[in-house]
């Protein structure tokens, strides 16, 4: 029966991989190989230590020649990992790559079972299924589609900026889309960076201005991606450009309008300074903002609220005519071949831990707020002061706020230890206060981190090993804002109640609250924590499960700046690799309709999510446009007369697998 359905004799080569002990430790590979050798069509059945190694692949090629095999089965790890490897091995051996079938006996078998007998049985069943399946395999051609050389980068933090410049310098055209009015992201808010203590602005600003100036970069700030369509090489992206009520092309960034605003003094909380400072309705996010273009906030601008403002700003802008109250939101459609997602992180909301008193006691700050206080361009001009203006004499820095905690976020945010030490150093430098760092463990891996830890310790910062348990106003001196920080010093086993003027909460990093929407937008995956999931934790750290979409920076997980930049470079390189190849090869798992079988019942047509199926009026039959088909197989499953087939997943192939896995005694 099977033999009838396939042309000529089927000669199968079966290879089972030990993967060191990863598989052989739980599956009796010899037994499986011997068993498979007894099945019809099997000419060669071998076990080998590492099939993915060069000798392993060579073995396949050699056997194809010597035993003129025309089907190859490799029982090893997940096809998602090595299918390409073994397909090309088969190809090098002169076989059509799609005559190769993989059997997943590691991720789905040896790694998840503890009973050697059962695991071996399972390996036999899965292998038998593959043996029966390959009888129906057909030679297939991969379809090539050209890759549009333009790249979309989402997010203008250090990650997005670095990827953009790398690609632009390589001569590729980049669209950099940033939600905020300026690029720079979190890094722009920092004062100095650990462990080198070089000023964030000094290293970031030049890169920001390069982005603006670069001929190959189209910079869209105050903009958001609305829709993403298409696939690797050919994405269609819709971008919304929010109105800033300023003509970007006309504004020269002279800031005179801010000066002239009818509001004599700034009175609205300033986002960039986390509300620690104030701004006017018309404002520049921060001095080094890029683009150097002001924004008008319609929520607070009198013109928008009442419609009758003297418009002193327009007056002073004069013939530059940069102010445009009529500006509307714009929708832009762009086509790109690859996308880099660099949407970054958000800091943990300290209000979620009530007993740390954030937003209850004014002298409890978050680390990011303190970064702004320390920053000379910040709301206090670099003065580290309490909300009432006093200089703190004693400061507690609380590590692991919203990290390593089942009740909030379970993961270690990786950067807090080092930035807490950095803040300890900086606050000491600015205020000469006594600093108490409460930590659980100090995590200082990486280049010159331990050295920095050492240096801060030498400076006399009190490093107390104990998680802060409670923070409350000092009852002995009511209403003077002093706080008691209570914790056990676990190294001496004593309970400490340390009175301080200022508490700094080293808040952790977490996924942005809209990560799920973004994930859906780009059809990528999130890890359980909610960070975007890389294709492989080690071997494909910047790839996603969607080809052509890459990850950079903290949207994939907490990172410090060096790692972020490195990853941003890697993402850019991955995009470059695709662009310079010029095309992508698509899996030939597309569906097709057998014309003479199709009754033209049209049942399949509305089911296709890509409108790849059309009805040929002349022939009165349905037809699938292979270029549009993504190979989900929905139409195949739904065709009531079985007249649609899917390459690589033909009914017969799946039936034979079903029979195969169940055919055990």
């Amino acid at each position, binding site marked *: 029966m099977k033999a009838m359905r396939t042309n000529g004799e089927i000669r199968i080569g079966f290879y089972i991989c030990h993967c060191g002990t990863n598989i052989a430790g739980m599956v009796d590979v010899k037994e499986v190989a011997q068993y498979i050798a007894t099945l019809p069509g099997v000419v060669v059945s071998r076990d080998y230590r590492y099939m993915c190694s060069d000798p392993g692949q060579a073995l396949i090629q050699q056997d194809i020649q010597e035993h003129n095999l025309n089907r190859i089965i490799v029982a090893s790890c997940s096809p998602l990992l090595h299918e390409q490897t073994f397909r090309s091995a088969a190809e090098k051996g002169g076989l059509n790559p799609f005559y190769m079938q993989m059997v997943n006996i590691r991720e789905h078998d040896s790694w998840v079972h503890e009973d050697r007998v059962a695991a071996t049985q399972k390996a036999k069943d899965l292998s038998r299924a593959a043996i029966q399946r390959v009888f129906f395999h057909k030679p297939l051609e991969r379809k090539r589609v050209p890759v549009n050389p333009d790249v979309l980068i989402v997010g203008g933090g250090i990650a997005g900026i670095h990827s953009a410049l790398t690609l632009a310098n390589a001569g590729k055209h980049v669209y950099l889309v940033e939600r905020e009015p300026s690029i720079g992201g979190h890094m722009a808010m920092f004062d100095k960076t650990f462990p080198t203590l070089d000023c964030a602005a000094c290293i970031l600003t030049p890169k920001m201005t390069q982005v603006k100036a670069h001929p190959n970069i189209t910079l869209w700030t105050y903009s958001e991606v609305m829709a993403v369509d298409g696939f690797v090489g050919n994405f269609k992206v819709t971008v919304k450009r929010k109105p800033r009520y300023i003509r970007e092309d006309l504004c020269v960034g002279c800031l005179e309008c801010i000066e002239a605003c009818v509001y004599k003094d700034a009175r609205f909380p300033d986002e960039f300074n986390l509300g620690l400072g104030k701004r006017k309705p018309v404002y520049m996010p921060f001095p080094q903002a890029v683009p150097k273009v002001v924004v008008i906030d319609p929520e607070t601008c009198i013109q928008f609220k009442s419609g009758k403002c003297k418009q002193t700003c327009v007056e002073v802008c004069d013939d530059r005519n940069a102010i445009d109250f009529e500006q509307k939101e714009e929708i832009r459609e762009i086509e790109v071949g690859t996308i880099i997602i660099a949407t970054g992180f958000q800091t943990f909301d300290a209000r979620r831990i*009530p*007993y740390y008193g954030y937003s209850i006691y004014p002298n409890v700050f978050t680390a990011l707020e303190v970064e702004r206080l320390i920053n000379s361009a910040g709301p206090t001009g670099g003065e580290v002061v309490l909300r009432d203006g006093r200089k703190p004499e004693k400061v507690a820095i609380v590590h*692991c706020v919203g990290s*390593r*905690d*089942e*009740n909030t976020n379970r993961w270690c945010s990786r950067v807090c230890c080092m930035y807490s030490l950095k803040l300890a150093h900086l606050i000491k430098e600015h205020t000469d206060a006594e600093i108490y760092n409460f930590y*659980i*463990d100090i995590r200082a891996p990486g280049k010159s981190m331990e050295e920095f830890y050492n240096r801060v310790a030498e400076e006399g910062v009190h490093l107390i*090993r*104990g*998680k*802060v*348990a*409670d923070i*409350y*106003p000092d*009852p002995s001196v*009511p209403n003077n804002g002093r706080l008691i920080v*209570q*914790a*056990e*010093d*676990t190294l001496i*086993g*004593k*309970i400490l109640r340390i009175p301080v003027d200022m508490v700094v909460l080293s808040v952790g990093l977490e996924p942005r609250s809209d990560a799920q929407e973004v994930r859906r937008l780009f059809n990528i995956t999130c890890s359980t924590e909610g960070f975007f999931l890389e294709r492989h934790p080690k071997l494909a750290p910047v790839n996603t499960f969607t080809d052509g979409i890459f990850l950079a920076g903290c949207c994939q997980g907490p990172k410090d700046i060096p790692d972020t930049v490195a990853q941003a470079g890697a993402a850019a390189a991955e995009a470059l690799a695709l662009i310079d190849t010029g095309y992508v090869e698509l899996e030939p798992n597309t569906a097709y309709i057998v014309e003479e079988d199709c009754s033209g019942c049209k049942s399949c047509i509305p089911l296709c999510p890509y409108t790849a199926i059309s009805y040929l009026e002349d022939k009165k039959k349905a037809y699938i446009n292979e270029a549009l088909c993504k190979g989900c197989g929905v139409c195949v499953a739904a065709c009531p007369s079985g007249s649609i087939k899917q390459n690589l997943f033909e009914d017969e192939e799946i039936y034979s697998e079903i029979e195969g896995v169940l055919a055990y005694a």
Partner: protein
Amino acid sequence: MVMTHEAIRSVCDITLETLTGIPEGRNVLTCIQCGMCAGTCPYGEYMEYPPRKIIAMLRAGLIEEVFHSDSLLNCVACYSCMAKCPRGIRLTEVLLPLVKERVFEHLPEVPRELQTALQNTLRYGNPQGLSPAKRAEWIKTAGVPIRILSQNPEPVDVLWFVECYTSYHPRGQDNSRAVAKLFHALGVDFAILGNEERCAGECARLVGETGLFDTLRERNMGVFRKYRFHQIVTSGAHAYDAFKYIYPCYGFDYPLEHITTFFAKHLEALKPLLTKKLNYKVTYHDSCCLGRHNGFYEEPRALLQAIPGVKLVEMTHNRISSLCCGGGGGGMWLDTYYKSRGMERLSDRRVKEAIQTGADVLAVSCPYEVSRFEDALKLAGYDDRMVVRDVVELLAESLGGD
């Protein structure tokens, strides 16, 4: 910190030896020795072996040494360590009772006050050592008819498990009379066990007297099985915990409410009845059992705010940070012991904060607290300016002309 029934069963017949044998218990191995437990413990500085150290000793195979220290008598089962533990280790629920049991065995002598309370509980089913026959005496003063199941075993909707302090202690009885009034006002079909009721035994277990707990538990379960009712509502916050977390191991599966949550669920029906205006400035003390252990922070506050005229103010330490009154885990009968060790009474510490709010009523929801805080207020010489009232007492007071 609310446990699923699966989770409860997983720890039913667990011992220190088998602890790490089950997934639930294995997470003591994940302890990162951060000291949160000791840091948040109200008697932290008196703890020779705070949970952190106990776990360290356990992992090092030195747990035996812990049994010989009586420092765990300082644990008043306030659930603070458990509520804040970053590894979600069920300290107050599982680990500490297991250790305390052994500590109790090794105690050279049990503090007398506690000893008597436990013996009383064994003999008379209440720590005060009052006659079980008088357990239902108070209903004579209730002002409303109260049905006792032994006299009329008809099926009933609410089986009201009154508990000891609310049956015997004069101020506790105020609580009970209030509840009875409210039940009537709401037209609830309820009944009590009267003299058949015994202490639920939660404190006995949490101080380490597991044997006593088992006796009481079996006795009460036996009585429950005699009657047909839809749900159990109890006035005891500690009884509530016992029924919710420990009794299920032994077949207890009745729907359960604490009076506070019960009335919170009936708030809509209750509101129109609360006609009498009470111009009090009230601060609410979250009891450990209802608050930290079961997360009922808003229910009692909702009840208070439903009372016309009441102005609610908060103490520095509220909700999850609430300071324990010191009555839990046997602490109720260890005050002299603590005093002898120069330890501040926790109820004294608590009322200081209450006083700072300038409130004139300290509202509570656990029967222990009324007497403890009233003592503390006297001691602080503040009893003329602040009174202690159970939430249900205030509700009943607000029930207009009856």
